[in-house]
């Protein structure tokens, strides 16, 4: 570290840019050299941890590779197998799509509704905000997934409560019809993080807009439709993009709730869980790499479509 400080110290004389071209290029060269030193760990990381593996995984996706033997070039075989001969892949894609399509809008709807209720100087705002945010912090942990498994177990909390009303509940996590539903519920449960982003967005809307609307006789619903919602669309869009990307990669909850198998009957076989099983249980690493690239393409395409579609519904007004 001492090396860095010696190398990047500019001489006092160089701070006057008037000194002419020679000195200022010298200065900018020194500044660039300093910048590269500051960025050195990041550059190495980019190369070794991120970009290198991205291309390595592209190469591997065209091979048959099991860590023990040499990689064998198989062309597009992995990709073809995936879409034509692997029902588990198709069902993992289906399960994940249902999960994302159902849970993300539900989660955001809850987040927005609670943000609207909490906005407008309610007393105890920070208390409620904390209560509703806590599940977002804990939701990704193994401990909560274990809890979920038992809350929705055949003899779990939910069925115990239902029994009070004389209802015999299903096995929830053990039943292929309901297992995915419990994971969707777990995701909705973590609505606190987008809620906080919504709250921050709501605070940006000038109260004069509402005052003017009220003077013109606009009722609360009309104000919501014509002021709040349009001005909030950029935040909704931001949350939507973020949550779709994130939930497509959900892993821990499905792993724990199904004890690492994706069952029952592959009903909780999330895409990433299947990728893990193929790559690190079957050691079919070429196939897993191909799955990873398909995931990348799906997420990139979804994000792209999101951005294109945003032109039609996201309102970037003169709010600033």
């Amino acid at each position, binding site marked *: *570290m001492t090396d*860095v*400080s010696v190398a*990047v*110290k500019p001489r*006092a004389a160089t701070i006057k840019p008037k000194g002419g071209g020679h000195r200022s290029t010298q200065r900018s060269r020194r*500044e660039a050299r*300093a910048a590269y030193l*500051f*960025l050195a760990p*990041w550059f190495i*990381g*980019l190369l*070794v*941890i*991120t970009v290198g*593996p991205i291309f*390595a*995984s592209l190469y*591997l996706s065209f091979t048959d590779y099991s860590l023990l033997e040499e990689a064998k070039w198989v062309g597009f075989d992995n990709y073809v197998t995936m879409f034509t001969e692997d029902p588990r892949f198709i069902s993992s894609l289906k399960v994940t799509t249902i999960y994302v399509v159902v849970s993300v809008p539900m989660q955001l709807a809850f987040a927005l509704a609670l943000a609207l*209720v909490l*906005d407008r100087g309610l*007393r105890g705002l920070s208390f409620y*905000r*904390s*209560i509703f*945010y*806590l*599940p977002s*912090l*804990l939701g*990704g*942990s*193994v*401990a*909560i997934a*274990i*809890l979920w*498994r038992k*809350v929705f177990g055949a003899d779990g*909390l939910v069925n115990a409560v239902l029994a*009070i009303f004389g209802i015999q509940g299903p096995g929830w996590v053990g039943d292929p019809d309901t297992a995915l539903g419990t994971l969707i519920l777990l995701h909705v449960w973590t609505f606190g*993080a987008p809620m*906080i*982003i919504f709250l*921050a967005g709501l605070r940006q809307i000038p109260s004069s807009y*509402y005052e003017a609307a*009220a003077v013109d006789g606009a*009722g*609360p619903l009309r*104000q*919501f439709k014509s002021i709040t919602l349009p001005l909030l669309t950029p935040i909704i869009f931001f949350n939507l993009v*973020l949550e779709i990307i994130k939930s497509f*990669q959900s892993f*821990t909850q499905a792993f724990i709730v199904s004890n690492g198998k994706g069952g029952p009957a592959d009903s909780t076989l999330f895409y*990433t869980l299947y990728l893990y099983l193929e790559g690190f249980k079957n050691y079919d690493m070429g196939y*897993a*790499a191909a799955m*990873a690239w398909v*995931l990348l393409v799906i997420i990139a395409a979804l994000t792209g479509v999101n951005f294109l579609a945003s032109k039609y519904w996201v309102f970037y007004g003169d709010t600033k």
Partner: protein
Amino acid sequence: MLFRPFRGGPVVKHILLIGFGLVMLYPLLWMVSSSLKPEELIFREPGLWPSQVTLNNYSEGWYALKHPFGYYLWNSAVVTALSVVANLVACSLAAYAFARLNFPMKKFWFAIMLGTIMLPHHVVIVPQYIMFSELDLINTIWPLVMPKILATDAFFVFLMVQFIRTLPRELDEAAEIDGAGYWRIFIRVVMPLCMPALATTAIFTFIWTWNDFLSQLLYLNNPDNFTVPVALRTFLDASSDSSWGPMFAMSIVALGPIFGFFLVGQKYLIRGVATTGLK
């Protein structure tokens, strides 16, 4: 001002909010209460108040696995602490360069950095695993900490760039006139002012690393190296359905540090989420 969905004033609203909050937190509270009940009462009593209180589940759970649970807590603490330090150092170094220094193709590199935030982690895990296994580093902490030493958590770089940009440049210039080099400006001027951003980074790195399951599952296969999430997971394998009490007890222990950080660092957590969309 916006609209009033609930007639009847704030009292009704508070009652509804508290009711909703209770429903949300009920599973958590139930887990705490169950961990204090004797095994056979857990599923017979859906209520929160234990009719019989015992710490048996905790003592049993603590010694249920190969090592006492404190051993796994320590392993997790080591990985987490190193990750926090690594992220603080590496991300702030990169952020300073992006926020304050000029260099060729800066815009390009900055765009790349932003792009890596969106990159799904799963795209790189297979080659990363192969690389670390070629280097014989499976079952060490390096695969978990090395990416952080190399500033690959770009979210935090971005967070700090945004923060440093709000600091007045005059401070840097004043220090420069006093003869300070870039390194000195970074350490003496910029970093001390970055405390809020550093706190957010530290707290989120702590929580994410403590909760992280996939990479610890991948890289730690030897029970001697297990961290808390991987150890908790083995409860599912090892135990018959009758040992939920100890498992709940250890789950509470595992969530304890996160809950503690939540209580202490709420301000930074909320601000971090609100400004960058961190989870």
